[in-house]
């Protein structure tokens, strides 16, 4: 399993996979946009403003998912001393950060017609902002520290520390009285969203996941070439 992430073995697969993922992403995104902006119905309460959900919710899910993966792999880096994992965490962070920003900005745009304000310091929104700060610190660690080992250690520590924030984001709407609505899509309980809205949400989530995969592959490829560049110096 660990050997599967060996840079030597993955470079060839990654190079070929990128084109297919890009094609698939564009295809799924086109269908998703048609569903989200044209075919899906308006909400009886929020009217057409509900369409913001189709970019806001998948972005929030993916940014949370990516940070969780980064945190779990960081445990692998610190405990099992597997340095191949740092290439994955470093390559995932930019996408996670951008999705986090999209979730915050589109949430703010959605908040104006729904709550009458662009921003509120409620538990869900504030904890999402905190996640963006963790992402930023993680990314900056790699820019600040030139010593690779030090950067690996500190960025992993930041990711593990940020993991505490993940359940806070998830359950903030249940634990506190927040302006943000509770989850409408649940894996374990009944989903309260109608199928006609669930379909575009699912398609957009698939499109955004493919985009994350595409950026991850490109960034991972870049990091591998960087290593090979250093390898050429040592020849």
């Amino acid at each position: 399993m660990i050997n599967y992430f060996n840079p030597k073995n993955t470079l060839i697969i990654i190079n070929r996979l990128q084109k297919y993922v890009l094609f698939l992403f564009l295809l799924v995104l086109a269908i998703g946009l048609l569903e989200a902006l044209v075919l899906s119905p308006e909400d009886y309460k929020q009217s057409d403003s509900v369409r913001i959900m189709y970019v806001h919710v998948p972005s929030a899910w993916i940014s949370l998912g990516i940070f969780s993966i980064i945190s779990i792999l960081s445990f692998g880096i610190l405990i099992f001393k597997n340095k191949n994992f740092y290439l994955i965490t470093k390559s995932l962070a930019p996408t996670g950060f951008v999705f986090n920003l999209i979730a915050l900005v589109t949430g703010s745009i959605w908040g104006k017609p729904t709550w009458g304000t662009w921003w509120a310091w409620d538990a869900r929104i504030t904890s999402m902002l905190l996640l963006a700060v963790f992402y930023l610190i993680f990314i900056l660690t790699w820019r600040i520290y030139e010593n690779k080992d030090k950067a690996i250690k500190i960025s992993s520590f930041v990711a593990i520390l940020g993991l505490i924030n993940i359940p806070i984001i998830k359950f903030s709407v249940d634990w506190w009285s927040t302006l943000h609505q509770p989850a409408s899509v649940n894996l374990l309980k009944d989903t309260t969203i109608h199928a006609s809205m669930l379909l575009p949400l699912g398609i957009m989530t698939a499109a955004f996941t493919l985009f994350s995969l595409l950026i991850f592959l490109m960034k991972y490829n870049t990091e591998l070439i960087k290593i090979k560049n250093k390898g050429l110096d040592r020849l």
Partner: protein
Amino acid sequence: MMNDILFMNGYGVYVWSSFVFTLSSFGILYSIIKLQLSKEKKKFENKFKNLASEKLELAKKQETYREILANTSASKI
């Protein structure tokens, strides 16, 4: 029909700005990462071209090096 899609019962400005922001962010992120990848490939290609002949032979044997240089002018070396 067109007006409905554009104005969305008065929410058009919010909906469209959200989608435009999202897709622009995608475009910017993709461009930055693509640029970084191209830069790193170019750097590798230049270093590869300037290798001494015995080192070049050694490097040519490595499959990963050949993969990085695929579709570049150095692949013909």
